[in-house]
């Protein structure tokens, strides 16, 4: 891409992000800095010395070199992870509940062998509670039939199941020595999914005052699959990161992870400009650390299991430089 094309993409990405999320455009100096990062011909890009942030590494490990504890050790000692996360490949609290004693034993073993703070992570994954996977009528089938009230009731019933499962797993993990819990891709099934995560977090916080709790989002805007659900008096449907953060703080999370999904038809520069614009309103008022998600296909990182290091590093640097975030 030429410098002119990059500049146009950065401006267009910020403009779209600002229009959709009702956030201010990035300032000119910020767009100029993004242009510097993305027009560099260097193979790698990095923040200035002293500007380093904490990397929470949701889903640490790659399952290709021994046990999960081996992988966690490798992330701690060979890959510079500041925090670690034990997880099951199903990555759903509903699924983890059925094998909790097994997962909790892994947590204990991992804690005996690791020094870096280690949390357990999975998704609230509300959709798993609907038929045919779960006991609740499927709201995605009810809504097209116009049975809106039933669809809403079904989601409310699913929230109760999900909250119970998340509390159950958190209790087991805390008893096994976990430093924290990660509720990742919250809101993936919409506002009821987000409400389930918030409700579980509040209950867990009350029960375990010292537990770390990370709330990571599924996307930049909470979908209104229910549409009428509220938390602390605020309607959850349609929330963007700034208000999502406010909910996370109210519930008792200690780390908030906003997520902005990439548009795979646009450039990395476009996606990063859009992500920065959408997340930036979080930063000034945050009372807890903000760690934007930067996995594959999120935050501007290309949607590939093998992203080029130059792309990953430019995204990493750009988000830290522009957002002054607390971690990634």
């Amino acid at each position, binding site marked *: 891409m030429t410098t002119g094309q990059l500049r146009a993409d950065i401006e267009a990405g910020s403009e779209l992000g600002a229009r959709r999320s009702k956030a201010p455009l990035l300032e000119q100096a910020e767009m100029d800095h993004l242009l510097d990062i993305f027009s560099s011909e260097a193979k790698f890009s990095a*923040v200035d010395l002293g500007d380093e942030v904490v990397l929470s590494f949701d889903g640490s490990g790659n399952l290709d070199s021994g046990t999960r504890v081996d992988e966690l050790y490798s992330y701690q000692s060979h890959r510079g992870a500041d925090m670690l996360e034990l997880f099951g490949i199903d990555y759903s609290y509903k699924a983890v509940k059925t094998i909790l004693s097994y997962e909790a034993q892994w947590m204990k073993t991992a804690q005996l062998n690791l020094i870096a703070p280690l949390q357990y992570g999975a998704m609230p994954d509300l959709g798993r509670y609907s038929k045919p996977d779960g006991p609740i009528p499927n709201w995605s089938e009810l809504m097209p039939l116009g049975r809106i009230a039933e669809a809403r009731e079904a989601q409310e019933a699913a929230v109760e199941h999900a909250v119970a499962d998340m509390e159950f797993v958190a209790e087991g993990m805390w008893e096994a020595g976990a430093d924290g819990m990660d509720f990742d891709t919250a809101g993936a099934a919409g506002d009821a999914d987000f409400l389930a995560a918030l409700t579980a977090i509040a209950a867990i916080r009350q029960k375990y005052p010292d537990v770390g709790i990370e709330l990571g989002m599924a996307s930049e805007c909470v979908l209104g699959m229910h549409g009428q659900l509220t938390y602390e008096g605020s309607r959850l449907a349609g929330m963007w990161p700034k208000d999502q953060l406010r909910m996370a703080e109210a519930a008792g999370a*200690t780390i908030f992870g906003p997520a902005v999904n990439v548009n795979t038809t646009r450039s990395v520069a476009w996606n990063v400009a859009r992500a920065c614009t959408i997340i930036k309103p979080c930063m000034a008022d945050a009372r807890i650390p903000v760690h934007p998600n930067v996995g594959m296909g999120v935050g501007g990182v290309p949607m590939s299991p093998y992203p080029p290091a130059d792309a*990953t590093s430019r995204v990493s640097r750009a988000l830290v430089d522009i957002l002054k975030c607390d971690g990634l």
Partner: protein
Amino acid sequence: MGDPLGMACSHALASGMGGMRTAGDLVGRMQMTRGMRLQDAKTYVAERLGVGVADLADPITMHEVRRDFGLGRIPVQELTYPTHAGAMEAKFHIAEVLDVPINSVRRFEECAGIRAVAGRPTQGGAL
């Protein structure tokens, strides 16, 4: 996840504090457990260790600081630490130095009979 070089290592080198090579795990622990924002967590850890904030991401300085406080270090082929604090032992020191509760340390104390807790079994557990 993703391939480690393209994801984990790239992020770590581009913007990370360095984990146990430096004080990244200590700053991360204050964020996770206390919800401290980055600058507050860095300042807190630096003060507890008696170093400057800029030292926290310096592996040369932190190698010696971690040795002095028994906070655990990464063994390499040229340097091993069989008589120094590692894993759980280091977490006992981290809890003391940072004045922060570490759940696994409490559990270890209970299971080892170092600290009895009323109403809690010292073996087995709730599961």
